[in-house]
């Protein structure tokens, strides 16, 4: 039971990370770059 809960939490975290990366990508941001690159498109 404990293992299942941990796996669920892990899956949720990984899902949230992937979702945030995809959303950031759509916004024109990239987590590797600290600057506001919404205008630059340098990462795409």
């Amino acid at each position, binding site marked *: *039971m404990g*293992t299942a809960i941990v796996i669920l939490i892990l899956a949720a975290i990984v899902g949230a990370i992937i979702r945030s990366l995809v959303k950031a990508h759509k916004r024109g941001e990239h987590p590797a770059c600290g600057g506001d690159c919404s205008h630059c498109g340098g990462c795409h």
Partner: protein
Amino acid sequence: MGIRIALAGNPNCGKTTLFNALTGSNQFVGNWPGVTVEYKEGKYKGDKEVTIVDLPGIYSLSPYTLEEVVSRNYLIDEKPDAIINVIDGTNLERNLYLTTQIVELGIPVVIAINMMDVVEKNGDKIYAKKLSEEIGVPVIEISALKNRGLKEIVDAAVKAGKEANPQSPKHRFDGSVEHALAHIEELCLHNIDDENVQRWYSIKLFERDEKIQEKLGLSSDVIEHIEKDIKSCEKEMDDDSESIITGERYNYIGTIINGCVKKAAKGLTTSDKIDQIVTNRFLALPIFAVVMFIVYYVSVTTVGSWATDWANDGVFGDGWHLFAIGSKAYTEAADEYTANQLIVDGYDLIVEETGAEPTGEFEYPVEDEETAAVEYEKATLDDYEAAKAYVESNEEPDPANYGVWIPGIPVFVEAGLDAINCNDVVKGLILDGIVAGVGAVLGFVPQILVLFIFLAFLEACGYMARVAFIMDRIFRKFGLSGKSFIPMLIGTGCGIPGIMASRTIENDRDRKMTIMTTTFIPCGAKLPFIAMVAGAIFGGAAWVAPSAYFLGIFAIITSGIMLKKTKMFAGDPAPFVMELPAYHWPTVGNVLRSMWERGWSFIKKAGTIILLSTIVVWFCTFFGVVDGAFTMLEEDQIDHSILAAIGKALAWIFIPLGFGDWEATVASITGLVAKENIVGTLAIIYGASGDVYETMRSAFTNASGFAFLAFNLLCAPCFAAMGAIKREMNNTKWFWRAIGYQCGFAWVIGLIIYQVGKVFTGEGFTFGTIFGLAAICCLIYGLVRKDKYNK
């Protein structure tokens, strides 16, 4: 109805500082020109209906540079409701040159004389009211840094924008110029909808601005007709049209300055005095070298190292004593116990090796924790008896029994997982994968923050602008422009904005070469790796971290010299004109904000990309095929892992560089996702065999360790930076050329370091050393060979 206000002005006059102050934004502010390459928008804090647009700094509205094109196109095509022309009050004359052009655009203008605090400190006086009368637009004194006059300037701009009644330029050129302008207007501009901008167009056509001719779609007949008017004026004034306009504008500015500015009589300013030393022909470079040495030494070896040790050993390790209470007592007890244990172990070792007990004084090994150097100390049989009695009657000290002990994150997590009876596979994934990998990267946050504080200070105080000026003198000798150094300065934070900043270089060949070499400078993401190598392989030696920075500069200069001699990059370097801003103490807020922005992006990356990577790396490390079956591996079986298979397939590439094992190979590969991954990957792989630093120390020699460092510093950057290179190159062939060159150059430098370095580190002269020496000869040939293409 919304109002759009554009901030326009010379580079480094404080537009971005004003933009941040007005919008509450956190755009990067640097005390050198060219920080803003593209325009940015933000809402005014005091009224969300007001949009503020920060334009790149420009010296004129002529399309000489990319920034000028971006700013000019925005002002003409987007037509903001009003323009705040930001002027550096300490350099009024040069700043007003742009003003004389902006007021001709037919857009309401308000002038903000910035840096009034510095003007007043210098004892100078600017008569704003008179200046306003002379130019015909409102003039307001401000200090963006001190939040002075900000509301007034926005209110004035909003009022001007709402009234939509553009000023009529007060300046009139010489009679013959005005005559030519009138002809041009009559000939082709009378049907333009916005008659306010007719004058500006006519001046640009008089200057033979091809982009404007194109924009207006003029026929060749009309252009020919205009040419007659221009030539007639040029003949009369005995100069070319562009120079005529420039000269006339400066004459006009001269009359304004005479009436509106009173300079305090004085000798050299403080900035001038500092520059006499800092930019001195002989002292400049040694000073720069010392400054950067101190920056990296303090960041990695002293302050940063103490903090990182606490983060690595405490927060992401076993734990730490709160406020160091009990730490001293525990250390003393642990040292005493270890000293006795070493004597007992030494005695037992002799018995094990010789099969006989020592009969008198004997030697036992003691390993230095920092350097891993083993020294032998002597003990008598009495010492052994006493040590044995101590070890038998005492237990190894537990830090939790001293002071207030806070367990580290891994201890907490492990206890939690044990409490819920978590499966061993999942427990391994969390502890050996995520916590070990992400923890190893996050453990370096203190060092990163200290480095970023230093860099932010050097940038904001104006020193880094001097460095570009100093480097221009050196770069020029090798056919490079100092302008190439600006992207490299920006690249110390992150390579991506550094690569983007190369847009300011007009010469296409220089720009491409700058893109190829910018990422040689170690970015913030490489710092954890540098610190890890310095700590694990070189026992925390102070020279390792600064040498990484200087290796980057060496790589840029040698690449510049060699590439400039090729047909692809031949040509004179572009002239580098840069204003050296006055030195000033940066505000604490600005420095901390800059540090935090960069630091936060590092932390964010650790929580996203690095975390995902550690899961993949853990899976590939602890799963593999044993006896024909795909299974989870024990710690001593990871040689059969997926990662080991990948690493072994590629490790031959790095054999000549001294780190041809699968562990170092896969770390170099995962570093392409994000450079911090090298640390995370090594922590997972080496952590499986025991202490990460100890295992790493045994896996590398000094020569192979430095070759490993050099290769990963100079080879292709992370995928995100590669994306930026691809975009800026705008050509697939050029992109692969850049990546190929970076990897090839890094490999050659790694080869030289290892093969020649091992001769000096006592590993001897081998067959490979000949290849290392041959690589040096090739490098020297590339540097000194005759230049066929540049005269």
